[in-house]
């Protein structure tokens, strides 16, 4: 009888369990297994122990890609969150046309990343793009944007800010969800606008900030599409027969992120063992960041620090 009931329960959970096993656990276990091998898809994997992990220490391309990715995490994540909070605060203050502005600010988030990146590179293209032409009318000598190693990453951040709609909507919901009574109480105590924001809004939306930080860090660690497309379009070799990765990282390797190197190693150099080791490290780092952030702030469990 109990067995039967257990089986019934199991049959209901089974689709989920199978899904987790097939699409999460199995790939994870095989990635870890392959990371200890030399594997090229074509021959039987050879066990090499920790070799792949050891070689990471003196791989100059890996170090470059880690530097670029860390730059993105350190700049892109905070800038995105601060801008999203700012934007949602402004939108929440609107008396009229809130719906129109919300739609306008949200729309770019719907643009496919590849199309958005191509459009951005052409808009910012020095010499022919409208942005620098406009700047020159204002007497400003515009930078080379995606063609300059110093400006390429900030340009990617700009691109990310343009498509900020997805987290802006979440912050807007959080800001609008702050109880009005709290603001009224604060106002009675003589709090000005800054005080109300600092001591009422911010603490209330902290769980959302934490959520945005964690998802933002994970997203940025996996930053791939925009960097790949921006590099190849800016290099002027958008469609070459040799495969897209010849232009990865352009200019001067400044947009060469960790996943781009992982992809190149795995699918261009056929070193899937090493690529899997890199994937495992990326997974561990993302997991560690998440755990640390969650530990530091108990916001998710609802307890106060």
């Amino acid at each position: 009888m109990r067995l039967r009931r257990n089986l019934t329960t199991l049959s209901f959970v089974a689709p989920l369990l199978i899904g987790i096993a097939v699409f999460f656990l199995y790939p994870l276990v095989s990635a870890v297994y392959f990371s200890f091998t030399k594997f090229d898809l074509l021959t039987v994997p050879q066990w090499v122990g920790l070799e792949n992990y050891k070689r990471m220490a003196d791989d100059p391309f890996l170090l470059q890609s880690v530097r670029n990715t860390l730059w993105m995490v350190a700049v892109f994540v905070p800038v995105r969150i601060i801008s999203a909070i700012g934007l949602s605060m402004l939108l929440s203050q609107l008396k009229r046309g809130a719906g129109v502005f919300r739609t306008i600010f949200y729309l770019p988030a719907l643009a496919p990343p590849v199309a958005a990146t191509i459009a951005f590179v052409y808009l910012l293209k020095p010499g022919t793009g409208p942005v620098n032409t406009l700047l020159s009318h204002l007497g400003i000598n515009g930078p080379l944007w995606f063609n300059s190693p110093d400006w390429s990453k900030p340009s990617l951040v700009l691109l990310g800010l343009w498509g900020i709609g997805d987290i802006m909507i979440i912050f807007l919901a959080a800001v609008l969800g702050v109880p009005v009574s709290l603001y009224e109480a604060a106002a009675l105590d003589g709090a000005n606008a800054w005080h109300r924001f600092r001591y009422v809004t911010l603490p209330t939306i902290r769980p959302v900030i934490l959520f945005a930080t964690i998802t933002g860090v994970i997203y940025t660690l996996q930053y791939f599409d925009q960097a790949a497309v921006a590099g190849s379009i800016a290099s002027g070799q958008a469609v070459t027969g040799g495969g897209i990765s010849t232009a990865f990282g352009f200019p001067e390797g400044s947009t060469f992120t960790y996943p781009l190197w992982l992809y190149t190693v795995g699918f261009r150099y056929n070193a899937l063992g090493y690529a899997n080791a890199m994937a495992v490290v990326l997974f561990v780092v993302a997991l560690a960041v998440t755990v640390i952030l969650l530990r530091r702030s108990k916001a998710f469990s609802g307890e106060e620090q």
Partner: protein
Amino acid sequence: MNKRIPPAQKSVIAAATAVLLLTACTPGTKEQKIADPGTEVSGTVELWHFFSEREADAVDAVIKDFESSHPKIKVTVKSGQDDSKVTQAIGAGNGPDIGLSYSTDIVGKFCSSGAWVDLSAYIKRDNVDLDTLNATTRQYTEFGGKRCAMPFLADAYGIYYNKDLFAKAGIAGPPKTLDELTEDAKKLTVRNPDGSLKTVGYLPLFDFYENVPSHLAPAVGAKWLTDDGKSAVAADPAWKTLLAWQKNLVDWYGYDNLQKFRAGLGDEFSADNAFQKGQVAINVDAEYRLAFLKDQSPNLKYGVAPLPTSDPAKYGGGYVTGNIMGISKNAKNPEAAWELIKYLTTNDATITKLANSLRNLPTTTGTMGDPTLAADPDFKTFMDIFASPNSSTTPPSASGPAYQETFQAFTVKWQSDKVKDLDAGIADADKQMNSVMSLGG
């Protein structure tokens, strides 16, 4: 009832399942046997290629000819298949009988791993004379003593020069040496009043269009790899010659000026190509550009010539590469596959027909004087470059293009003035190349 599996047994089962699952998706090995001479070949054969649209139609036309001359063989063609799809299919045990790839970079991997079978046995059985193949194409279709690929048309790189701009600058003909190239480049360059570049004679940046180290190596006769597959860049002084020459010209323009100028140029494979728009007067490119020029810039007056060289005695060549084809180790019908490959890569009439429709270079010596080959003087120049003993290619490596891209990354650093000591820089790049090549093993 509560059936319990002892923990020890559990882990054994888990491990066994894991191994089973993992091996299910990894390749195995298979013995190669070939038929006796004279055996009649029949059945279906599957060909995967990367062409699309007009080019795919051209291939289909030739396949039709093959089927009518070999009525017992039926060919299934799948177009638009790139290298990674072919690799995955072979790894999963379902490789197409024949793969046709645009990249010679996969030859090393496919030969060393046995993903493509060694064709020597077939070649010997059918008395195919490999000497009828262009010498450079023979280099990039074999690796480690294994001939696992055959060349399917080829590309040769030379220089294109703008005749109007040459006339305006008072230059009679194309540069033949690197020094002349520098001189002409300076004469052809026009600056704006504010000092920025308006027209560039020759854009020397190593990450500009086709102006990459591999395409310029024949200019100095530089060698990529030693015979045992290690990096040769530190040992070969030619690389230093090339880099020093290039940096000199970059500095004359000013790196920042070039960066700024390049940022405003159109995409290489669009009608806005800088050479086609007259923004760059001399450009490294291959014979396929002829078709683009005819189509997109019919009014441009241009000429083509071999790559200028450091040593005048080595003039006449350029970089050579091409499409390749081979038989998967898990081909279902390798005999028919070989029959088709033989037809496409060694039959002069077929190759002439393909060269005429795809506008790439024919690879056999027998096609060179063929009157049915549509070869205007420009195309003929590329055929001469292709046949020149001074031409060279990038040797296959088990880790594909890894060594070239590692070196290119170094040259990009070099041109932007981030390398202070050239000798130490090259030595370091040499070390990195060996390291990255050990990934492919």
